[in-house]
């Protein structure tokens, strides 16, 4: 699904956010990107949905050479994946239904398809009964579920999540992670960048650890911290 080879990203201000990163992510995988704040997790995701192009290196997403994608072909890439952020990025003057439908409407979908797919996405995230509410009438967890419904409404095969539970309390976090697990079980590849230890430790999935723009470990069923006991976590 995703192939990253020898990728470095240097921002215009000279910050080297990623340093020779290589990573293979298979179809249907569930993978955590972990690491301190500022180690390049968001930057790596931005390269995948082509918010940015790498300074050097090759990136393939779902068969598309993303690192040298012409500007005009970016929309086609974005329609094949969904992205979810810490701050939900919902439109406050649109209802839940309208926010989800927006993703289809602005990509030129037929009303017929909008009517069919929006309820399906809302059912998936369990918000069908709140479809007429506005984002500010929802809890953080519900807002994030709305954002996930929007990301999934056109059935992408890949879901990218940048700190999806960053603004959520533990109960809502659990709910969101459970939702992501279900989505993954249906066959969608899920990539989650997080620095939430509890989430990672509970899920026991593949963990790719970044530090200062480099991949330092890649474990099949990892924990948030590598080989560290609880004491050290608390003191460090």
């Amino acid at each position, binding site marked *: 699904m995703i192939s990253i080879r020898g990728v470095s990203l240097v921002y215009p201000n000279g910050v080297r956010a990623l340093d020779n990163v290589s990573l293979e992510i298979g179809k249907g995988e569930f993978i955590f990107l972990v690491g301190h704040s500022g180690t390049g997790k968001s930057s790596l995701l931005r390269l995948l949905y082509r918010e940015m192009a790498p300074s050097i290196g090759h990136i393939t997403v779902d068969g598309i050479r993303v690192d040298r994608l012409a500007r005009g072909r970016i929309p086609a890439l*974005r329609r094949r994946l969904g992205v979810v952020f810490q701050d939900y990025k919902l439109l406050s003057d649109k209802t839940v239904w309208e926010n989800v439908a*927006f*993703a289809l409407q*602005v*990509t030129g979908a037929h*009303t017929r398809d909008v009517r069919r797919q929006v309820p399906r996405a809302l059912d998936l995230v369990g918000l069908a009964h709140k479809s007429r509410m506005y984002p500010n009438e929802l809890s953080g967890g519900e807002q994030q579920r709305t954002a996930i419904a929007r990301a999934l409404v056109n059935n992408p095969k890949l879901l990218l999540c940048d700190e999806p539970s960053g603004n959520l309390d533990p109960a809502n976090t659990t709910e969101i992670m459970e939702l992501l697990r279900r989505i993954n079980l249906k066959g969608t590849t899920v990539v989650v960048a997080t620095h939430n230890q509890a989430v990672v430790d509970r899920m026991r999935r593949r963990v790719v650890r970044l530090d200062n723009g480099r991949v330092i470990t890649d474990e099949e069923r990892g924990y948030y911290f590598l080989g560290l006991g609880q004491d050290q976590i608390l003191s460090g």
Partner: protein
Amino acid sequence: MDWGRIRFFLGEVQRNFTRNAGMQITAIGTVAVTIVMLGIFLYARSALIHAESGVFSQIEISVYADPAATAAQETVIRTALAQDPRILSVSFIPKREGLAQMRRLMKGQIDTSLLTENPLPDKFRIRVREAQEVPAVARSIARLPHVQNVEYGREVVQRLLQLAAVMRPVGIAVIVLFLLVAGIIISNTIRLTVFARRREISIMQLVGATNMYIRMPFICEGLLAGIAGTAIAVGALALARASLVPKIASALPWLPMNTVAVDLSTLVLELFAVGAAVGALASWIAVGRYLRT
């Protein structure tokens, strides 16, 4: 026809349009002022051009016979004129009739009853087939015997040409300037809308809307501003034409205007085309600059 899609799109346009109404009104006002000026210019030009061709086609040569000429001598002149193939028609105005005409024209301006004798010579009024032959025909008639004087509307023609020569470059420069100003103001208005909607735009981009699609509502917004401004301008021009043109025509009688011949529907169409084009182009540029960065 997918009405759901159309409704969604129109909703987006309306949302844009109402988002910064104040700036929008400024933009519409500028377009209106610009289009009013353009309208006046095109109208005046059209009226003058029609008058110009009208004047040329109607140009008459007045041939004044020598006051001492006898009737027989005048017949010689008349025969010579009738035989000239370049001449379309000849009418003879004896001095009696000439005086009567002058009395009618000058009524209230000159007291013609004071005239003790008729000062006017007999006159032939000649229409020529081709306007450009007027000067040559006039010259050859002047060589006929017993012809005292030959006149044609040289001054009118020259005045007309001078007027056009002055008006055209000045008018065009002013209008181009105003079109630019209108474009810049619309462009800035759209930029404000784009800025107000940057969140929507970034989400659109995130979910894979094409730049074309993102542009569309903004182009429509600019188009609407252009058309609204033009509509106001056309309304104002229509009022002005009804009330001012007759006054101008009577205040400046020397101004050769032919307002009847102006093709108003074409003029209005042209104005709307210009207004719409300025609006659409300005917003295209404004959004384009945003999307590229």
